């Protein structure tokens, strides 16, 4: 469960990236966060994993009250989340297997468990055969699938994806969506920031539109563009 209550975020350069955000995302939901560049989507997403702190208001993720959270507790919040980025953020010097395993090593899982689980999630994203490759030997779509595998390795309740299909061609993007849909069908909450109208229209879910730091639309089963009626 994610909840924003009267959340404001003002950057030091006086840009207001969030103006009175009130949003509640229930467990198991799939929600798109859309809006033009610079609208405040990334700020909204980053506040969920405490990369940014609100200037005022309350952000609750699972049972963590993020505005009260100590820096030393942040790693424990992040272990309950899976985070996927537009630029994949894979460790270039580690193999595919090691990249995924890293997320389990940080929570001190036993090596046997890590082995089994990493193979399972790599299989899930269809890249078990690339386990020994390095990220720069893979295509963009494959790297994003690895980054999703890493995000779900720890069975998080929430997956936060910031433009996960941003750098990918339409076919590859659909492949990524299929994986996210599958993860969501197993009860994982998915929050996905995107610019991709085709995807939002094709895989319909709740749509949250942000513009100029304000939430301008929160529509269940909405399309990319607001219906004119």
């Amino acid at each position, binding site marked *: 469960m994610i909840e924003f209550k009267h959340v404001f975020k003002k950057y030091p350069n006086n840009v207001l990236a969030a103006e009175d955000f009130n949003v509640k995302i229930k467990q198991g939901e799939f929600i798109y966060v859309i809006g033009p560049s610079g609208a405040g989507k990334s700020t909204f997403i980053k506040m969920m*994993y*405490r*990369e940014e702190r609100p200037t005022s208001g309350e952000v609750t993720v699972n049972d963590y009250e993020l505005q009260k959270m100590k*820096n*030393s507790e*942040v*790693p*424990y*919040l*992040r*272990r309950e*989340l899976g*985070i996927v980025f537009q630029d994949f*953020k*894979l*460790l270039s*010097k580690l193999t595919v297997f090691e990249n995924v395993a*890293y*997320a389990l*090593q*940080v*929570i*001190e899982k*036993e*090596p046997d468990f890590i082995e089994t689980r990493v193979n399972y999630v790599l299989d899930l994203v269809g890249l078990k055969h690339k386990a020994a490759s390095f990220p720069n030997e893979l295509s963009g779509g494959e790297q994003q699938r690895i980054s999703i595998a*890493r995000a779900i390795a*720890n069975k998080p309740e929430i997956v936060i994806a910031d433009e996960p299909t941003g750098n990918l061609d339409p076919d590859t993007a659909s492949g990524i969506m299929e994986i996210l849909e599958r993860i969501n069908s197993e009860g994982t909450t998915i929050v996905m920031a995107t610019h991709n109208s085709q995807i939002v229209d094709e895989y319909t879910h709740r749509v949250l539109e942000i513009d100029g730091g304000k939430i301008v639309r929160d529509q269940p089963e909405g399309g990319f563009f607001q219906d004119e009626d």
Partner: protein
Amino acid sequence: MKISTFKRHMIESLKSLKRNGWMSIAAFSAVTVTLLLVGILLSILMNVNKVASDIENDVQVRVLINRGTTKKQEQKLKENLEDLNYVGKIKFSSKAQELKNVIGSYGKEFKLFGGDDNPLNDVFVVSAKKPEQTVKIAKAAQKMKYVYDAKYGGASAKKLFSIVDNIQKWGIGISLLLLFVAVFLISNTIRITILSRKNEIAIMRLVGATNGFIRWPFILEGAWTGLFGAIIPIVVVNFGYMWLYKVISASLASTGYHLLSPGVFLVQIDSLLIFIGIVIGAIGSGVSMRRFLRI
């Protein structure tokens, strides 16, 4: 920390050394250069201390006995000297023996003064238990009966003590300064290697690694760097010292002073260099990554 996690950190730190190639070599070089300086300086210092303390301990009081003193009286004087509680050994040297020493040092011309012409005195050579007590012994001896004079090298001994004291103080100062420079140099080099891995650290934080978990492999990597960086200085210091020991010992032989013999001394220096290398490597690494771990 679980054993499997520690094992992972160890493996990871070694892999990371390999992955960072030239950066690791740069860090090794910094450690090598500084440890080489530290090693050479330490060897010099410890030997200066050794020779200085040899000289210091060598200071004796020469108690000149009045001419015409009987054997019995001499014995009495010896007992009186022994009663001074800071007196160590007392050695008797007859005036004939004293003249022999003079002839040995200054030449055969002094043979003229042999037999009854010998102007010298019988002497008790008194060594103090502690060097700084030499002066006290000399003063006490001067007041005793049958004593013509008591000499301890006076001003020159005092001067020597102050020089030794200065050498030790300066030596310690320079060593500390050098170690400080070493930590600075190493932490800067490691900072550059960490800077190039800023992105890596950011990703680790995003997947929920605690600061401790991120820090450990880096600290271990620093420790390895220190350990491997100590190899060349150890080899150079060991071979260099063994060679110098042979050369210098030969010329010191006549003075009765000795350098520290290589066996135990080199084991100490080697362990110290390894220890310093590991500690400054780990500290340097830990210090330089602090700023990347602020969330």
